[in-house]
């Protein structure tokens, strides 16, 4: 038995005016947190929408736990939880009512729904707000409701489409631990984000997507160490040029050389450097 949770094979999506996905393929292992990283318009959300059954692909295949996703839509949907980019909650209804309707949509028994709501409200620290209408909550709390709503039916695959977009940095960090805890329960997670730091902290593996094509897949650590450990930023008149070094002494030697004519700074290499390096190569 394979331990592949999701297999995406050569997915193409054509819209009348744009080719959004140009043959995307990747695999996610069970219990893995896999991140799709890319700039706005790269095709991240389109992939999520296709997996969630919200958009039809033009061609290609997807397998969820070895079953063809398009041939088993109802079963597939019952295995997937989705946290969309935007807050699509019923603003007039309470937190509890939103979770209740989700439970009914996924055909869960009422006794299970009641227990699960109590459990998730506890985990998300929302117990006191269960009777609050969604419109009375802050953005951070609404995002928390979105995530626990997606977890109501204990999905085997959780799709997180830019889940922390627009959140303050300290709330984003709280989310990271929340997401890591979900992964620890055995849930496979596909995360899209354009926050490099987020992917670096959370993901077991990362795929860079650019203009509808995946250009590289690796672990964040491998991506970084392949580029170098230290980055030297040289501030030129029109841009910042970065140089990468494995060795710190070598980096410091170069720093002395450039510092005569330019402002320079030395720092550790991050996933953002890797991404920018790939983008530069692919432009």
């Amino acid at each position: 038995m394979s331990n592949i949770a999701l297999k995406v094979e050569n997915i193409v999506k054509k819209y009348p005016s744009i080719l959004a996905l140009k043959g995307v393929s990747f695999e996610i292992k069970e219990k893995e947190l896999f991140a799709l990283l890319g700039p706005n318009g790269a095709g991240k959300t389109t992939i999520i929408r296709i997996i969630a059954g919200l958009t039809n692909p033009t061609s290609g295949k997807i397998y969820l736990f070895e079953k063809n996703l398009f041939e088993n839509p109802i079963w597939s949907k019952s295995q997937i939880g989705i946290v969309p980019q935007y807050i699509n909650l019923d603003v007039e209804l309470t937190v509890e009512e939103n979770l209740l309707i989700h439970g009914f949509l996924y055909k869960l028994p009422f006794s299970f729904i009641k227990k699960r709501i109590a459990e998730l409200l506890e985990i998300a620290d929302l117990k006191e707000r269960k009777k609050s209408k969604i419109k009375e909550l802050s953005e951070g709390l609404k995002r928390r409701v979105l995530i626990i709503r997606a977890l109501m039916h204990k999905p085997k695959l959780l799709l997180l489409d830019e889940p922390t977009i627009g959140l303050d940095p300290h709330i984003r960090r709280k989310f990271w631990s929340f997401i890591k805890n979900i992964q620890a329960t055995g849930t496979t997670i596909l995360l899209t984000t354009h926050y490099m730091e987020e992917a670096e902290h959370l993901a077991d593996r990362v795929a860079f997507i650019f203009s509808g094509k995946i250009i590289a897949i690796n672990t964040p650590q491998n991506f970084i160490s392949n580029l170098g450990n230290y980055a030297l930023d040289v501030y030129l008149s029109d841009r910042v040029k970065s140089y990468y070094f494995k060795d710190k002494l070598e980096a410091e030697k170069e720093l002395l050389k450039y510092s005569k004519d330019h402002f320079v700074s030395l720092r550790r290499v991050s996933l953002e450097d890797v991404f920018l390096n790939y983008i530069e190569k692919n432009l």
Partner: protein
Amino acid sequence: MKGFLAVYLREILLFKKRIFRILLSFSINPLLYLFAFGIGLGKNIVIGGKSYLEFLIPGLISATSMMQAFAINVEINISRFYLKIFEEFQASPVSHFSYALGEILSGVTRAFLATFIILAISFLAGVKFHLNFYFFLAVFLNAFIFASLGLTSAMLIKSHADQALVTNFIITPMMFLGGTFFPTENLPSFIKPFIEILPLTITSHTLRSIALYNSFKNSYLIILFLIAIISFIIALYSIKGSKD
């Protein structure tokens, strides 16, 4: 709980939250029509041996149940284009059949509530009618047809603005020509056959026959039933086509 009940439950929960606003808006239109056409203009008019008010009320029930059932398109549009809740339904393991049934039954509920309000107003105005199972069956079928069409239009349109066009060009003319305010016998012969096969006209004739004369044509109910099935199938296909 079945999927359609989840969709229906959501609509009912929202309905409950807005119950006073809804009751008020459901009462205003029929009250205005009753005063303007029934008591104002139609005071001295007699049609088929009945007062104009007696003639008007069954037609008004047909038209109002049509309008209220069709009005689910507004709610669906809001959940589709503004709240994006339609995507929560699309991503869930609920079949198109269940989704359509849940939405349509919420439209039928709206239509029945509006019907009961008109009947209550009529009762207070001293107008007495024959009411039986077939009267309410006709209201149900009429509401089912127009809720299906409301769902279809909500799935086919691409923005809020398009919705007004559908209402202005289809629903409003039907309300005025479909036997609500005057007998269809008075219509010009070139338009009459077309008007007579409209579901609203058939419902108006059926409700009026039952309410005023305690009789109705079985064939009318069969036709309404067939139109309801066809409308539901069209609604199902429209949901299928709503994915981008």
